[in-house]
Structure formats: structure tokens, C-alpha cells
């Protein structure tokens, strides 16, 4: 009897592509979708990392740079026998930060990797799903930064854009039975953040960012307080993605599901 409803969340027989899946939230999503029965293509610019995850979950590893439209057209146009699920998780906050410190090139990179990348991946995916006869589910990973101002104009605008991109694409593709939604994660400690804090890779806060409102007392206080009392995990985000790509949400499209422990609503 319980199987009756849990079966709706089962992805057995479906083929999914998850971008940015070599580490962090993307890796968590790939693992959960695979555990729910899907065959998962682990796509990442870091092919060694993608291979490690793919081997673990019995999926396939694919090297792709989501800022390259030609590479995306190749990847999404040819992977698997049938494309059922696309999760656009790849993104970067390397180009986050105060406008006082940011170059226009950096700002454009923030938009390119976090927003234009969605167009690069969704266009060939949508064409493929329509060609297959319709049906399918796309989830774009946005951020609470797209709801509340957090990390500066480039990153925040790109993530707000990702949320509206999802609404617009949902309306566009609904006649083909393709659902499109966004998930906006709150604070999830991931390896990339840890490496930034450890100084292994560039930190997005310039040294003098304390003169900016981004690192002022208001945002510092806000980010220290998650109402549910804990930071998020990749699994928290992955479960929301699983709901939105499964038959349990077959009437949900054009929505942004915020998964943040209550952080944005205080």
C-alpha cells in the first residue's frame, strides 16, 4: 500500500543528465537520482571527478563546459537513447562580490556561467524532448541569492534570472508536456566553499570587501541564522529535485522551490 505512493518517486528506466555533478550539490543530486532508479550522466568540466561519481553510481561520465553552446548541443543532443530528465546544476560563485571591486569581465562571467549556461543546456535538451514526442522534466538549480540580495550584482542577478528563466521556459514548453522548475538552495557547505576558505582556490571576497554592504553587519547576522538550526546538505537539495523530476509533481511547473531551512523568510 505504501508502495502505491512511493512508486510515484521512482525513476526506474529514466535517463537523467546532471551538470556540475563531480562534487557538492550536483554530486548529491546525481547520487539520489541514481538511487531512485535513474541512469545518470554525470556531466562536469572536471572529467576525473565526474568519472569517480559515475563509477560509484553505475552512470556515465561526460566532460562538458556549460558556457560553450556548441559543446552543450553535442552533449545534450546525443547522450543516452532517450533524454527524460535534465538538472542544470553547474554554476560558480567565483565571480561574486562587490561592484566596487568587480570588473565588467568578471560580471559577464557570472552571468555567463550561471544564466547563459541554462540556455546552452536547455535549448538542445528541449529540442530532443520534443523530438522524442514530448514529456520530460528540467530542473534548474538557482539560489536563495536569486530571492534575497547576498553576493553582489553579478551572481545575484544571474540567479534571479535563473528563476525567471525557469518560469518562462515552463510556459514555453508546457504544450509539449515538458515541466520546468527551479530549486533554490540556501547555505549548503560544499567542498568548493571549504577549498575557498582554505585558500586553495580564489576567494570571492576581495580583501577590502568589508567596505561593501555585502559583508556588512546585516548580511553577516542574516547568514549566521538558519531558523531550522542547521546548514543544508546536498541530500536536502537532491530530495527536492527528485520530487520535481518525478511523477509525484506532474502538475507542478514554473515554480521555484526554496530549500533553505527558513532562511529567506525571516
Amino acid at each position, binding site marked *: 500500500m505504501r508502495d502505491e505512493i512511493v512508486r510515484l518517486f521512482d525513476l526506474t528506466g529514466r535517463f537523467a543528465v546532471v551538470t556540475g555533478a563531480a562534487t557538492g550539490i550536483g554530486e548529491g543530486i546525481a547520487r*539520489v537520482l541514481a538511487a*531512485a532508479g535513474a541512469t545518470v550522466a554525470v556531466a562536469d568540466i572536471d572529467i576525473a571527478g565526474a568519472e569517480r561519481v559515475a563509477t560509484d553510481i553505475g552512470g556515465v561520465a561526460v566532460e562538458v563546459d556549460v558556457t560553450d553552446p556548441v559543446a552543450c548541443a553535442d552533449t545534450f543532443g546525443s547522450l543516452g537513447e532517450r533524454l527524460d530528465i535534465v538538472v542544470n546544476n553547474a554554476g560558480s560563485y567565483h565571480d561574486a562580490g562587490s561592484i566596487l571591486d568587480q570588473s565588467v569581465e568578471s560580471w559577464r562571467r557570472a552571468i555567463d556561467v550561471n544564466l547563459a549556461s541554462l540556455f546552452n543546456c536547455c535549448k538542445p535538451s528541449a529540442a530532443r524532448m520534443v523530438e522524442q514526442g514530448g514529456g520530460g522534466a528540467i530542473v534548474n538549480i538557482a539560489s536563495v541569492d536569486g530571492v534575497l540580495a547576498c553576493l553582489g550584482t553579478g551572481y545575484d542577478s544571474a540567479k534571479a534570472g535563473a528563476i525567471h528563466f525557469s518560469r518562462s521556459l515552463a510556459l514555453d514548453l508546457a504544450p509539449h508536456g515538458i515541466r520546468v522548475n527551479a530549486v533554490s538552495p540556501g547555505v549548503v557547505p560544499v567542498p568548493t566553499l571549504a577549498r575557498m576558505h582554505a585558500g586553495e582556490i580564489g576567494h570571492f571576497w576581495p580583501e577590502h570587501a568589508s567596505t561593501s554592504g555585502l559583508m556588512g553587519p546585516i548580511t553577516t547576522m542574516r547568514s549566521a541564522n538558519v531558523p531550522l*538550526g542547521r546548514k543544508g546538505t546536498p541530500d536536502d537539495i537532491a530530495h527536492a529535485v527528485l520530487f520535481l523530476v518525478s511523477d509525484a509533481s506532474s*502538475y507542478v*511547473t514554473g515554480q521555484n522551490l526554496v530549500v533553505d*531551512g527558513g532562511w529567506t523568510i525571516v
Partner: protein
Amino acid sequence: MTDTVLDRFALAEGRAMVTGAGRGIGEGIAIALAEAGCDVVLTARRGHEIEAVAERVRSLGRRAIAVAGDITDGAFVEELADRAVAELGGLTLWVSNAGGADDRTPRHLADMPDRQWDYQLDVNLRAVFTGARAAARVMDDGGSIINISSTAALRASPNNGPYAVAKAGVDSLTKTLSIELAPRAIRVNGVAPGPVPTEVFMEFFGATEADLPQLATKLGVPLGRLGTPEDVGNAVVFLASRASSWITGQTLVVNGGSR
């Protein structure tokens, strides 16, 4: 027993209250919860309707209690919570779904009698507050409250003003309750259904069974179909489950992409 991903979407050992559970969306929610593993307390004004739903819950192998009464009566709401504790041993989930109106005559606010306004605010908003208060009183830490809203809350609703105002209030209540109850790890979320052809819905749109195939197009639903009680029930199961344990204060819109 291993904890598989799919197990996290089930509600084993759950004990749920569902208000307005006699038919329509409330019935769909009660059945979905029972399928997911919950025992259920069902309440609505009409005893024979909730008794029939209780039978369906029992046929799924779960316990069910039907308690008829008026959800706008604060003492009755407290009694409901006490019955759940006495007969099911407590509650892990409270779903405030009851809604409607005693006078459903479509009117502009300029022509609205106080009585129609007051009643709609009582049943659609005040009962959500009293329900959450009763739930918080009897619930162990870690439970969940889910308030059924409506997409009517999101924009102008001519001829349906008090209902839309009440549902917008429900969305606000969901946010504030989620923060106030977060220290107890009680999560509070909402589900806002779009067009679901329940009896009340059909009456409001003056629609008959024969109109249903065209209604989704007429209402401009991008996914091309009307919603079902199951669509709402599935969203409730997700928001009540461990799979959503870091989601609170959110209202999930289930409307096929419609306005």
C-alpha cells in the same frame, strides 16, 4: 532495514489530522497520507462523508478516526487535537485544508455583506491559526504543519475577494509560524492548488461535468489539464516527509503553470 532514497518520501508511523477531509482535495490528501503510511484523523461538518473516507483509509491498512464538527469553533479544534492524542497517541502532522463559504454568491467587495466576509475569514484563515495552535500544543518536536492555500492568494480575485484575502493571510501565517516553531523543529509549509474541479470550484465557475474537457483551455492552464486531489496529496506527502526536512515556510504552487 536499510534506508533507501524512496523510504525518505514515505510516512511510516505518521499520525495526521486532515480538516475538510470529507471530499475533494481533503479526501485526496487523506488517502495519499494513508498510502504513505499515516494513520489519519478526519474532520468535516458532514459525518457521513468523513466516515466513508475513514473506511477507505482503513481499507489501506491504516487507522482512521472520523470526528464531525465545525472547524470555526475554537473549542472543537482543541477537542480534535485531544482526540488525536487519546486515540492515536499523538500527531506528527496537521493539514489545515478546510475552507469554503456558507454563502457562495459571487459578489464584488463593494456589495459584500459583513456576514459573507466574516464567515470566509473565519473558516479560511482563523481556523488555520487555531489549528496550528492546537497542533503545536499536542505535537512532539519534529512534526509538521501544512496549510492548504490557493493560487487565488497570488493576484486579484474579482467576485472572490474574501477567499483570496484569507488565503493570502494563510501564506503569511505559514511564514511566521515556520519561524516561531523552527526551534522545535516543527516545519510549516503550504500547498497552493490551482484549478481542481471540486464541487465548490464547479459551483464558482458555474461549470458542469460536460464543461470539464474544455475548462483547462478556457482557464489557460499551460499543462492543458485541470488539477486533481491526488496532485495536491502528492505535494503534501513530500512536504510532510523526511525528504523535505530542510524546507520550511514555503508554499508550493501546484497549478499546471497557470496564472
